[in-house]
């Protein structure tokens, strides 16, 4: 049945025997043969099959690999890395306070713990498989045999190495013969091809590894040294703009400022504001006691004033203008000691105050009250004062002030 080939002697004398190779055509044959070889006590032998043959582990007596334990260790490493990474970066080195939640709380950190466990475990499973299997394996004596190419196609091979202590050229061949193989072939050591990686590749790998560390080394150096030159920005993101910003020094002008002041003799179109009464609330240098004639006192102005007062003044002074707005209340609650309470605008002092002075207060602010001139248009400021006057009156209102029809409704 066997059509064995005699080893071919090479020019430089015969190479030593590597082992004996038997070929089988079915999984049943290789399983039976494996058991025989196993029972004969060989240790340095292997089978080669195009796919994992069911039951061959037991037939060959292969012991369970330690790979799962390696993966377990790697998975736990991934888990530990994720815990440390998240704790160190978010709770310790740079405490990230998010909506007042605790800096370190496991549930929000679980997803990344899981992902890193899987990532490191999975990649390790692959690498450990390669390392334990001695892969990559560039050359093998079996590569010299033409028939062996079918090991990845449709044939099943069994190799007993000559290095096995039990190996005996004749007896081993007889043993293999008894397993009724399709063919038996002697395999010689391969003297021509090396099973080492070519030195060129090794050097290239070493150089690539070293070179890949260079950018990191440069980054680390830049991080821990000081330099006077500006940092290199490949993509500018408009962070360097050839213009002068407000309040910056500017060598172009004699006064060295980039912000220019308007010429004292000029006024912008429509900005003359010569009506002192309307624009400044004064008449002949004193605060006006009347509303300016250009401001129409009517129901529209009153409603406008009510609305604007609600927007701009109530946060501090309150809806009733008594100085009890939300901001004031909150500030009192915090009791930080630095708070000046907003005035009660229904006080007699404010009632007696000329409207021009209130106008001035709104426009420029007073002591702790900020200026609202830039935010509230001039006529709206007058409308607010109009409404404020009405509010003040309502505070001291008597029943006789009401129209007869309304009195009955109370």
């Amino acid at each position, binding site marked *: 049945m066997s059509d064995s080939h005699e080893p071919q002697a090479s020019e430089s004398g015969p190479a030593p025997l590597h082992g004996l190779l038997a070929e089988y*055509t*079915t*999984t049943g044959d290789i*399983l*039976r043969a*494996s058991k025989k070889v196993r029972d004969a006590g060989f240790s340095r032998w*292997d*089978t*080669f*099959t*195009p*796919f*994992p*043959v*069911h039951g*061959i*582990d037991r037939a*060959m007596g*292969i012991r369970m*690999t330690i*790979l*799962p334990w390696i*993966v377990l260790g790697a998975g736990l490493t991934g888990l530990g890395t994720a815990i440390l*990474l998240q704790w160190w*970066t*978010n709770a310790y080195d740079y405490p*990230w306070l*998010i909506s007042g*939640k605790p800096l370190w709380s496991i549930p*929000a*950190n679980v*997803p*990344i713990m*899981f*992902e*890193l466990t*899987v*990532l490191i475990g*999975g990649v390790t*499973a*692959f690498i*450990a*498989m*390669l390392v*334990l*299997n001695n*892969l*990559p*394996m*560039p050359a*093998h004596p*079996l590569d010299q045999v033409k028939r*062996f*190419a*079918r*090991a*990845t*196609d*449709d044939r099943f091979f069994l190799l007993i190495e000559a290095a096995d202590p039990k190996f005996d050229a004749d007896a081993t061949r007889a043993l293999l013969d008894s397993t009724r193989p399709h063919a038996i072939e002697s395999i010689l050591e391969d003297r021509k091809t090396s099973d080492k990686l070519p030195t060129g590749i090794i050097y290239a790998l070493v150089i690539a590894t070293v070179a890949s560390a260079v950018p990191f080394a440069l980054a680390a150096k830049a991080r821990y040294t000081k330099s006077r030159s500006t940092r290199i920005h490949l*993509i500018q993101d408009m962070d360097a703009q050839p213009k002068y910003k407000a309040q910056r020094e500017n060598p172009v002008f004699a006064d060295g400022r980039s912000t220019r002041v308007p010429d004292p003799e000029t006024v912008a179109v429509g900005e003359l504001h010569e009506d002192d009464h309307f624009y400044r609330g004064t008449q002949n240098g004193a605060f006006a006691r009347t509303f300016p004639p250009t401001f129409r006192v009517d129901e529209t102005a009153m409603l406008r004033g009510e609305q604007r007062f609600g927007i701009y003044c109530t946060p501090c002074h309150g809806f009733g203008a008594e100085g009890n707005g939300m901001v004031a209340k909150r500030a009192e609650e915090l009791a930080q000691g630095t708070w000046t309470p907003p005035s009660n605008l229904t006080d007699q002092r404010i009632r007696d105050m000329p409207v021009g002075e209130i106008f001035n207060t709104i426009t420029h602010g007073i002591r702790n009250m900020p200026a609202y001139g830039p935010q509230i248009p001039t006529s709206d400021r007058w409308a607010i004062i109009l409404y404020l006057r009405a509010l003040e009156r309502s505070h001291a209102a008597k029943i006789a002030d009401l129209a007869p029809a309304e009195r009955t409704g109370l």
Partner: protein
Amino acid sequence: MAAISDVNPFVSAPVGDNAFARITDNVSRIAEVERPPRAWYIAFACALGILSIFLGSIGWVVWTGIGVWGTTMPAAWAFPIVNFVFWIGIGHAGTLISAILFLFRQTWRTAINRFAEAMTIFAVMCAGVFPGIHIGRPWLPYYMLPIPNQMDMWPQFRSPLEWDIFAVSTYATISIVFWYMGMIPDFATFRDRATTFWRRLCYGVVAMGWRGSSRQWHRYERAYLILAALATPLVLSVHSVVSFDFATSQLPGWHTTIFPPYFVAGAIFGGFGMVVMLAVPARQFFGLKRIIQIRHLEVMNKVLIATSLLVGYSYMMEFFVAWYSGNKYEAFTFVNRAFGQYAWSYWAMISCNVLFPQLHWFKAVRTNPIATLIIGMFINVGMWFERFVIICTSLTRDFLPSSWGYFIPTKIDFMTLGGSFGLFFTLFLLFCRYLPMVAMAEVKAFHPSAHAHEPDHPVEHTGQAPVGI
């Protein structure tokens, strides 16, 4: 040099004097023909054309800024995130087939797992592009990685967007490792059949010197099993994490606990839709009908019915919870989805995802490749609309009517969406041309003749043969 041929070289019966050899030949010859048939070139040219549109539109977006998309307040997520979720979802079927069905010992998976895995990887690549360009400054995504930077601050690990970075990159890595590892024995087959120096060298390098040693197979199988066991929860986690991007926000229509399982079911549904869409032409064209049989299409179509019912259930449940919660914003959101300004997209989604797949209840439909292909396409359209509905209806109708709006995509939006298919199909066609399209070793392992007729091992009952060779 052989001329490009008009006749398909893959229709003839595979050669070999035994089943294993025929399987090898059937799969290997696809990558071995010197010149693939004209149709492959035409398909490849189209794919490259669409890919160039993709690259062009991305270049334009990067050069001018993302304002060239319709993406703007209030629909700040719009197409890019719709496309991201769509593609990442597609990927899930591949891992499901290769990992979960492996753990459940579903031997029919061997016919389709390899190219489903390839599909996963290419889909994840397409998905990865979108967040990268959506951030507007694609040179800054390293802000999201925990590496020391000039701002001296770390990423915020309690944000679902940060979880996404880890989930998606882990998923991509593990999928590639799983895919590559599965191909090592098949690369070895290619190497051993190679007739030219370069083929032998290239496939030899990627096969890493695999020779099929049983001692190596033992560790290989262990590693494969462990990878499957790790990939199974991983695939469930990835789309759950993607759904957290929505579910942990406060927006009505997003802030729901049903999202993780609902997203995972949808992902598997959409992914299987894509698998059948690719499988039908691939088996036809590459002469793989003996390996990818009608039976396999039928099983996948059954999975489609099941997952279609699952997503249908989720759609219903969302409505129920909106009503049951008594939350008027939530209730409004769902009424608005079905009858509001985007009602057309909602009903497109319902008909593609819930109604059409029900045709698969008929055996005549689910065993018909053409019907399978068409329904698969509908499912892909429907699943895209699902993400569109979720993102656009909720964003444009949130709590404050003053900030309501309507999202209108621009030409560039459509170019990036359509163009991403160019990337996908270019990669897929290259895969068909140069890599083992079917896991030969696995198919052989489940072939009846692989089950030894051993005296002390009665022949196992393997049911129907996974392949018809």
